[in-house]
């Protein structure tokens, strides 16, 4: 499991349980259109498998398009506590991806921390990453430039959007452990508003 996901889930679970939430309350959530996320991930995995080392020109465009599916999932569940933060992380990542031709840019010197033979201009095999020098990367401050210790031999490389995603995941998991009434405020009926001062 990716560490970003593991940290988000664990942080949300620990916070939720400390606040007397319930683990199985998460299963009571009804995430709308969740299957679109599965389709988007499947499409992305297939795209990078198809791309190989050649990277046909339509692959980056299709990659960006897959983010539209994810955006639909976030918008469909926007009233779920924490998911808008996930949406912000998604937007930060897709902004830098779209600005740099459809793949996540990473500086070669950063990539070499994990891939010693990384060459500028190359695509990392089986990844959504293109190696671009920082000076020619648009919105480089949203790219994969954050290097974190991972507790393993190789460091963890992440983008600011990834960190927001982890925080959003933690917030979402925390919110889902809470009682159902806490998760989102009900929209009042028009009739309920009668008699209130205008």
């Amino acid at each position, binding site marked *: 499991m990716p560490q*970003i996901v593991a940290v988000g*889930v664990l942080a949300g679970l620990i916070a939720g349980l400390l606040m007397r939430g319930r683990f199985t309350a998460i*299963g009571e959530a009804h995430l709308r259109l969740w299957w679109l996320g599965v389709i988007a991930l499947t499409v992305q995995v297939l795209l990078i498998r198809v791309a190989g080392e050649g990277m046909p020109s339509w692959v980056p465009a299709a990659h960006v398009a897959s983010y539209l599916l*994810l955006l639909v999932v976030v918008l469909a569940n926007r009233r779920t506590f924490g998911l808008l933060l996930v949406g912000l992380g998604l937007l930060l*990542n897709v902004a830098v991806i779209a600005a740099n031709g459809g793949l*996540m840019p990473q500086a070669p010197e950063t990539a070499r921390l994990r891939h010693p033979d990384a060459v500028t201009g190359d695509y990392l095999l089986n990844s959504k990453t293109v190696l671009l020098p920082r000076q020619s990367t648009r919105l480089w401050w949203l790219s994969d430039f954050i290097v974190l210790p991972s507790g393993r031999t190789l460091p963890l490389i992440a983008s600011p*959007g990834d960190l927001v*995603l982890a925080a959003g995941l933690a917030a979402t998991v925390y919110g889902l452990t809470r009682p159902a009434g806490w998760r989102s405020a009900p929209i009042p009926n028009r009739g309920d508003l009668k008699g209130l001062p205008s």
Partner: protein
Amino acid sequence: MIHLKSAYIRTLLVLGSLATLVVASGASDFWN
């Protein structure tokens, strides 16, 4: 017991859906 198991399974399915959403949205350590 069966009810408890299905509650855990539903919980894992929701967590799996959220994890899928986050991995597809970025999570560079999955892709690098």
